[in-house]
């Protein structure tokens, strides 16, 4: 089993080799070779051409996650705790789940302008729902006997929430966050597609206009890297949280 990472890596080399060969028979405009993309990526990084775009997109993603995820978590707790609120709001939540949120991007550009605000709003909206749903479920599914224990100990509602429901639900909440993180990148990029001159999404549109396909691929690689890093950060946090108390094996 320990050799599996090596095999995965060999497969990557193989695929890149096939790509390189296939690209030799085609125009660079259609399919640039990995080596060409690699050098475009390298040059862009070294010259600092990508830097402002990376910073822009990363800050949109992080701000969107912070606002959208934070709000989703907070409202999730309220709806998980207060039955009245949950029953009142759940039809709206279901309805707004069905709205294709990225389709609202043009509207947000209209409302919030071409600056960063509109992209942060789109990103936040996309991040909001996975965290909301997972938090509601996590808060509601805590063990009944443990809740009775807390009642027996005379714990207040807030204490029960902080010491029992949130820590017990954390695996579920973090799973929601993992989904949110990946969606956040999509949200920011789509926002930049529609209106914006900065950010990796805008760069993709620009490279399309310039017919610079290697640049487009390089940008996509950067976006993928960003998604992977965010995902790994959450997974790492998840592991550290659960590993502490899991069985030793």
């Amino acid at each position, binding site marked *: 089993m320990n050799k599996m990472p090596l095999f995965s890596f060999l497969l990557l080399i193989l695929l890149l080799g096939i790509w390189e060969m296939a690209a030799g028979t085609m125009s660079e405009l259609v399919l640039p070779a990995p080596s060409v993309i690699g050098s475009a990526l390298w040059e862009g990084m070294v010259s600092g051409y990508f830097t402002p775009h990376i910073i822009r997109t990363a800050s949109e993603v992080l701000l969107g996650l912070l606002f959208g995820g934070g709000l989703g978590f907070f409202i999730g707790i309220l709806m998980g705790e207060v039955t009245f609120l949950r029953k009142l709001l759940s039809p709206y939540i279901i309805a707004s789940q069905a709205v294709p949120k990225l389709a609202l991007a043009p509207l947000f550009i209209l409302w919030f302008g071409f600056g960063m605000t509109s992209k942060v709003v789109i990103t936040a909206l996309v991040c909001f729902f996975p965290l909301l749903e997972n938090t509601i479920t996590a808060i509601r599914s805590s*063990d009944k*006997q*443990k809740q*009775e*224990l*807390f*009642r*027996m*100990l*005379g*714990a207040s509602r807030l*204490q029960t929430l902080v*010491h*029992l429901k949130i*820590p*017990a639900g*954390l695996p579920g909440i973090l799973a929601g966050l993992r989904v949110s993180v990946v969606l956040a990148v999509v949200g920011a990029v789509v926002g930049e597609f529609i209106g914006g001159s900065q950010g990796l999404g805008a760069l993709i549109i620009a490279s399309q206009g310039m017919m610079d396909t290697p640049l487009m691929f390089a940008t996509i690689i950067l976006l993928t890297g960003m998604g992977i890093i965010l995902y790994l950060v959450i997974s790492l946090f998840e592991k550290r*949280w659960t590993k*502490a*108390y*899991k*069985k*030793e094996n």
Partner: protein
Amino acid sequence: MSFLTIEDVTYSYRGKNPVLHNVNWGMNKGEFHCLIGKSGCGKTTLLKLAAGLLQTDKGRIHLEGSEVVKPSPDCGFVFQSPTLLEWKTVMDNVLLPISLKRKLTEEDRTQALELLELVGLASFSDRYPLQLSGGQQSRAAIVRALVQRPSLLFMDEPFAALDAITRDELQDDLLRMCRRYNMTVLFITHDISEAVYLADMVGVMSEGEMVYQSKVELEQPRRMEMRYDSYFNELCYTLRQVMGGKPS
């Protein structure tokens, strides 16, 4: 006047058929009472009513003269499952009842460690619950219930999921701690011999009613051989017949 009195208690879940019918029971301070009965006979409901986790429909429950309407801080409860918080160490779990009320002091820790020592868990105090065996988890749960020195302890089949030998050990541990702290215990079980071994008084419940009660005349402290003497077995047999069904 007894320590805990249950008078004419009737209870039903959401207005359906009553689970409990005019149940009466009384306990004096320092006594150990066991209630036995088949599953669904209402014994857990009665325990939760006495603990204040549920409210009676009719009848009254008094603890030291005052009516029980909500869980009293002076009572401990041990559930069927150990209900330890997996993300806290054994020590933090044991100290949970105190940490919910006030800031912990060094004295609390020493005291908790002493209790853990009594059940042989002192060296496990910084482990997490999932790293313990089932018996050790149950012990930790009992220590947590005792850390506030409750005057009354409610136990809801706490040993049901354990193997026979571990269960015997835990019963002895429990009795030792009860004597040490002069605790009053109301203990629910479906295991007749467990009830006879532990209790000063055994009550049998059936279909929501208290159908039989019997004193247990065994000397304290209990010893392992008592489980095999004739008085013990005759009492078990009588209780078995009261509980109904074919004696096996």
